């Protein structure tokens, strides 16, 4: 007999008491973590507190807030069949076990993003970044992913763009599409720039990354011809070859081949653009699919390794909690003050618009139950957020002096260790020229100065953490391991992103010239791939040759664009909440939207109109243009050509920022119009939701089935046995 329903049975009241005690402890752990982080001043703090604060807050957010959203706001219905069940075709639509889907979804959303942003934001100290990563994910990022996933599931897995068009209208939809395309281009340019900064003048890194191409080609051939579908075995072979390539990179760097793999940044740009172009017109099975397996394996493996490393060593944070750059706004990594720039620098890990593209489209076609959106959407995003926290830990455990020497542009700190040491010490972070040289020697690089972009800094942090376990002898290996791991999936992203950009372009240009719509028409393919590579290649080229520092100039544009995509996603969510009769809950995504729009539009405004030439693109342009007119060269430019480069780049960046901001204002205004109309005259709105079909599947909602769910599964198994 079941007694679970009996309210006052001793079993349930005991269970309830236990639950209360457990969650009180979790809350206390989180609160103590935050307390120590916030109150520690002037002394070094253990990363354990950061981990405690983050994990405690995640647990509370997941258990209470996400649950509230799932059942009270979205009213997820476990009796309603999902597209995976209704439209099951055994390929892309099929009900997938929740634990498998969690892995899939996490692997799809987590990439280089959560590792790069937090590292750059560490210039303001570890505290602002930590607060934004944790609070942002609980109230904005994870909510966005989960709500988009829910609404897309109710719409047979429609993409964000389609939902914007159907639910907001053609104007909002077109603006959203254009914004997504622009964002893709900037994203690819900036990611490629991160790679160039990590691989330039580094024969070890360049050789190991170059080797990933033949390895992937071999894997592709194996899967296509030798043993189709045997992904695990070929991935194991691939990872073994990859590790061998990594080890042999050191031999190459010490041999006479070193010169062949020591490439200048501008040479790397040409190689990367050529790679992106060729890779994106080759069939998927040759390069993209096998690379994807490799990078997924490496990604999950490295993240687990890093988590274990952080928990085992619990390193001390050497970066101050809040640096002076947070208020002064003159930081060398990126200009501008804490508000709004921390919130656009850290996108992935806190709130990332790109996730909306994954949460709509692929994942909704595989989810078994509507009640699993909390686990898949919210849960995956919490996992990604913890990756961002680890990246912040890695950036904060290295000597702050080294951190600033690595992340400041060459125009600011010069290109000798003496000069760099002097400038960085002047900022208040003591580091001697000998220490700077020793740090580079330890990881077997010729120099670590101005290795901007985040990847090298993260790699130094990772090697610092791992070397505490494996000893100093392995330090250089871990550094290059981390570089290889980031470069691997950034190269994959270049290929995949170029394809998606091309697809958007083909779809749009196809309206003008019909044959372009046919995605297998070769000339069209080559043309559109060329356009997309040319566009991101332009930003990459500009970034490498920017006298003011490419990351310094371009990363804010990238951050703004990514957060603007989040604004589009949150706008679609809010509109859908209003239109589906959940007006009183519209604040669930409406408040994050308001915050995101405020932050991003403030940042855009400052980048366009600020009087501070370090922040405002047009002020910068004006100063350099005036100097050109007077025939002067002002530092950090060295020649008149540099001066002209600065003028052109700041004009392009400024115009781009303004256009992106305008596009988003259009989307939000159009959505507001739809919402107001719905509130006034609900009869005029249409909701393109798939109709209700009763579900026959039985599946638990959470990671671990509850007692009731287990009983339900048993009853279902017995029923199926009797029936068949």
């Amino acid at each position: 007999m079941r007694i679970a329903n009996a309210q006052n049975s001793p079993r349930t009241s005991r269970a309830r008491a236990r639950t209360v005690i457990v969650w009180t402890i979790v809350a206390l752990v989180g609160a103590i973590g935050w307390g120590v982080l916030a109150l520690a001043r002037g002394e070094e703090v253990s990363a354990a507190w950061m981990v405690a604060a983050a994990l405690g807050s995640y647990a509370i957010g997941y258990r209470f807030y996400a649950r509230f959203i799932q059942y009270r706001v979205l009213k997820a219905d476990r009796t309603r069949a999902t597209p995976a069940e209704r439209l099951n075709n055994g390929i892309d639509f099929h009900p997938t076990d929740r634990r498998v889907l969690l892995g899939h979804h996490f692997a799809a959303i987590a990439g280089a993003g959560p590792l790069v942003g937090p590292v750059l934001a560490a210039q303001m100290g570890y505290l602002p970044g930590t607060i934004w990563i944790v609070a942002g994910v609980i109230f904005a990022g994870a909510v966005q992913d989960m709500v988009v996933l829910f609404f897309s599931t109710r719409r047979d897995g429609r993409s964000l763009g389609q939902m914007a068009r159907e639910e907001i209208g053609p104007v909002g939809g077109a603006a959203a599409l254009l914004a997504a395309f622009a964002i893709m281009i900037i994203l690819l340019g900036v990611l490629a720039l991160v790679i160039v900064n990590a691989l330039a003048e580094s024969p070890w890194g360049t050789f190991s990354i170059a080797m990933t191409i033949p390895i992937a080609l071999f894997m592709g051939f194996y899967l296509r011809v030798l043993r189709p579908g045997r992904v695990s075995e070929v991935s194991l072979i691939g990872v073994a070859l990859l590790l061998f390539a990594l080890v042999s990179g050191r031999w190459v760097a010490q041999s006479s081949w070193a010169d062949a793999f020591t490439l200048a940044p501008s040479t790397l740009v040409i190689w990367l653009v050529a790679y992106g172009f060729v890779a994106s017109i080759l069939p998927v099975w040759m390069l993209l699919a096998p690379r994807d397996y490799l990078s997924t394996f490496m990604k999950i493996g490295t993240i687990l390794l890093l988590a274990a490393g952080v928990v085992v060593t619990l390193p001390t944070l050497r970066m101050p909690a809040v640096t002076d750059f947070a208020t002064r706004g003159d930081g060398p990594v990126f200009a501008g003050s804490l508000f709004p720039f921390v919130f656009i620098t850290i996108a992935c890990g806190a709130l990332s618009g790109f996730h909306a593209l994954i949460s709509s489209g692929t994942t909704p076609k595989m989810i078994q139950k509507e009640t699993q959106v909390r686990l898949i959407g919210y849960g995956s995003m919490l996992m990604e957020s913890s990756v961002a926290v680890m990246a912040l830990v890695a950036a904060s455990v290295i000597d702050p002096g080294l951190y600033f020497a690595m992340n400041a542009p060459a125009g600011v700190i010069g290109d000798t260790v003496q000069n760099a040491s002097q400038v960085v010490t002047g900022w208040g972070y003591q580091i001697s020229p000998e220490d700077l040289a020793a740090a580079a020697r330890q990881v077997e690089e010729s120099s670590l100065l101005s290795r901007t972009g985040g990847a090298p800094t993260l790699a130094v942090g990772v090697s610092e953490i791992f070397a505490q376990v494996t000893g100093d002898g392995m330090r250089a290996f871990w550094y290059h391991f981390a570089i290889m791991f980031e470069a691997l999936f950034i190269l994959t992203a270049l290929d995949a992103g170029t394809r998606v950009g091309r697809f958007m372009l083909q779809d749009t240009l196809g309206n003008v010239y019909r044959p372009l719509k046919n995605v297998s028409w070769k000339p069209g393919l080559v043309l559109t791939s060329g356009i997309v590579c040319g566009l991101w290649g332009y930003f990459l080229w500009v970034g490498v040759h920017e006298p003011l520092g490419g990351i310094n100039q371009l990363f804010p544009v990238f951050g703004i664009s990514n957060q603007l995509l989040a604004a589009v996603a949150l706008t679609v969510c809010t509109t859908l909440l209003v239109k589906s009769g959940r007006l009183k809950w519209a604040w669930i995504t409406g408040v994050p939207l308001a915050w995101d729009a405020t932050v991003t539009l403030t940042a855009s405004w400052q980048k366009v109109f600020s009087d501070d030439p370090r922040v405002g693109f047009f002020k910068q342009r004006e100063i350099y243009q005036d100097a050109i007119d007077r025939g002067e060269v002002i530092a950090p430019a060295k020649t008149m050509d540099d001066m002209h480069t600065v003028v052109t780049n700041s004009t392009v960046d400024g115009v781009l920022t303004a256009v992106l901001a305008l596009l988003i204002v259009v989307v939000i205004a159009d959505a507001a119009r739809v919402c107001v109309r719905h509130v006034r005259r609900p009869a005029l709105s249409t909701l393109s939701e798939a109709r209700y079909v009763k579900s026959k599947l039985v599946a638990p909602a959470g990671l671990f089935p509850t007692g009731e769910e287990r009983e339900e599964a048993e009853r279902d198994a017995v029923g199926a046995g009797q029936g068949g």
Partner: protein
Amino acid sequence: MRSALVRAVRRTAEGVRWYVRELTGESAYDRYVEHLRAHDPDAPVPSRREFERMRTDRQDADPRQGFRCC
């Protein structure tokens, strides 16, 4: 005692194998065949080679399939 341990180890190993096969998509072919056969036990099924080709080539046609984030 020992047989219980052996059983537990075997169950864990099977669980890991199942998870890896599902996550990598190695089980996609078996699932597809099962799906076809569930409707019609005599349905013609593609060979594994044909199926895997079809699956990767679908991504060529629409690169948004299986797209990953930054």
